[in-house]
């Protein structure tokens, strides 16, 4: 790896030698990744290379088989459930499909984390929800709709509003632009950049959309066969000198990365 390492004492997330396998299928094979404070790192990689698994390991939704994951210098692998819940308060997450709760109106979706922490009344929570919706460019009237009544782009925005509602220190974005038209994708990218900057939050995203990666990343890392094979500042991505990276960012079928075409 030929990256200028961020200052070690100011690392928000630090992964070392993370392994995860499902049955005989090795998904993560000694993954190392650093994310500095207020940095926006985007992990790129093809479908099925373990990007989502990596994210789920950091969030504690999956337990890695081996390796270390530190958040703010604190080891989170093998942590107790109560401590884990405490750490998760620092996190916000935008899910790929939005993952909005369809039994609740939009505003309760946005305010869900606030209501769960019981720090605000329902009335206050509603006000905060409306202001967060405004931050992502949605009017207050959307708050009373059900998530099923929204378009895909609006659902993503509501998901973003929910992710930032409790002012998290770290926000995860799981394929934020997948399934959106190019213009809406760009709107979402802008919102991600704007909101994370405003909050001074650290961002870790996974995507295979290079336009999105270039826009939201300070640093890009490429995941291939369970390892980070290249990482560096966004402006260096075109001169990476790495054949895998070049094949991926140019979207060529020929190259060192072989896709399993057989079903």
């Amino acid at each position, binding site marked *: 790896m030929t990256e200028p390492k961020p200052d070690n004492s100011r690392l928000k997330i630090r992964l070392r030698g993370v392994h995860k396998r499902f049955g005989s299928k090795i998904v993560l094979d000694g993954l190392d990744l650093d994310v500095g404070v207020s940095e926006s790192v985007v992990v790129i990689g093809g479908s099925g290379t373990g990007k989502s698994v990596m994210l789920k390991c950091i*969030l504690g939704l999956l337990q890695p088989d081996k390796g270390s994951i530190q958040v703010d210098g604190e080891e989170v692998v093998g942590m107790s459930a109560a401590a884990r819940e405490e750490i998760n308060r620092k996190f916000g997450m935008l*899910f790929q*499909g939005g993952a909005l709760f369809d039994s609740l109106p939009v505003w309760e979706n946005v305010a869900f984390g606030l209501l769960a922490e019981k720090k605000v009344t329902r009335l206050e929570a509603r006000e905060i929800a409306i202001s967060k919706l405004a931050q992502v460019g949605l009017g207050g009237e959307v708050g009373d709709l059900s998530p099923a009544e929204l378009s895909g782009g609006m659902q993503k925005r509501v998901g973003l509003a929910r992710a930032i509602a409790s002012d998290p220190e770290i926000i995860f974005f799981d394929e934020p632009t997948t399934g959106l038209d190019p213009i809406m994708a760009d709107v979402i990218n802008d919102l991600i950049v704007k909101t994370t900057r405003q909050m001074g939050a650290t961002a870790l995203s996974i995507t295979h959309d290079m336009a999105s990666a270039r826009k939201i990343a300070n640093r890009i890392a490429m995941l291939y066969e369970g390892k980070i094979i290249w990482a560096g500042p966004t402006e260096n991505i075109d001169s990476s000198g790495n054949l895998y990276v070049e094949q991926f960012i140019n979207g060529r079928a020929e190259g060192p990365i072989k896709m399993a075409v057989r079903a």
Partner: protein
Amino acid sequence: MRFLRLIGRVFLAFLGTAGRLILFTADAVSQCVRPPFYPRMILRHMLDIGYFSLPVVGLTAIFAGMVLALQSYTGFARFSAEGVIANVVVISITRELGPVLAGLMVAGRIGASLAAEIGTMRVTEQIDALTTLSTNPMKYLVTPRLIAGVTMFPFLVFIADIIGVFGGYVVAVYKLGFNPANYIQSTYDFLQAEDVNSGLVKAAVFGFIVTLMGCYHGYNSKGGAQGVGTATTNAVVSASILILCFYYILTEMFFAK
């Protein structure tokens, strides 16, 4: 050799499932006593399981009672023992038919909807989203449904008992020509608190089984629409089979003397 290996694999898979189910149950039950609680969710599910199941349970019960009166009449009339029909109806309904028929009907209605709802939440990552929003999904999704199931099933069965006995009364009086006052009197004379109570205990157990199976299969569903479909089927089938198993076990516990 291959045959032995197959037996071993099936046996290990069975142990694995049983272990997972026991851990799931222990977790869900232990969450009942640990805050935070979700009274709003509990009420919502009590309404859904209790109130909205009334039509299907009521219909089942009234026809069960009617058939029971009719059939026991054809049987007992041969021995000129028509007098015991009220007895047969009230004991069969309160002890056995009320709980088991209501349990099976609601297993279809509630077990399927729980598995489908929670299963869809699983495959659309809503359960993961709960975790990232500092909410324990077991506590938020599973525990309120279990509490609602265990409390509302006895209520449903109590209603089913009354409607079932009424069904028997209707047939006995209007079709078989019994004297209404005598029929009610003998129903009242034969009925004991133990009959009703044992039925209500069975109902609470069945309520636990139905909601647990719905939640367990939904919670562990994977792989999109097909996975949710499989989870729904498994929830209803396993709940029905367990209800029938426990039906026997509980009857044995209560009445084998």
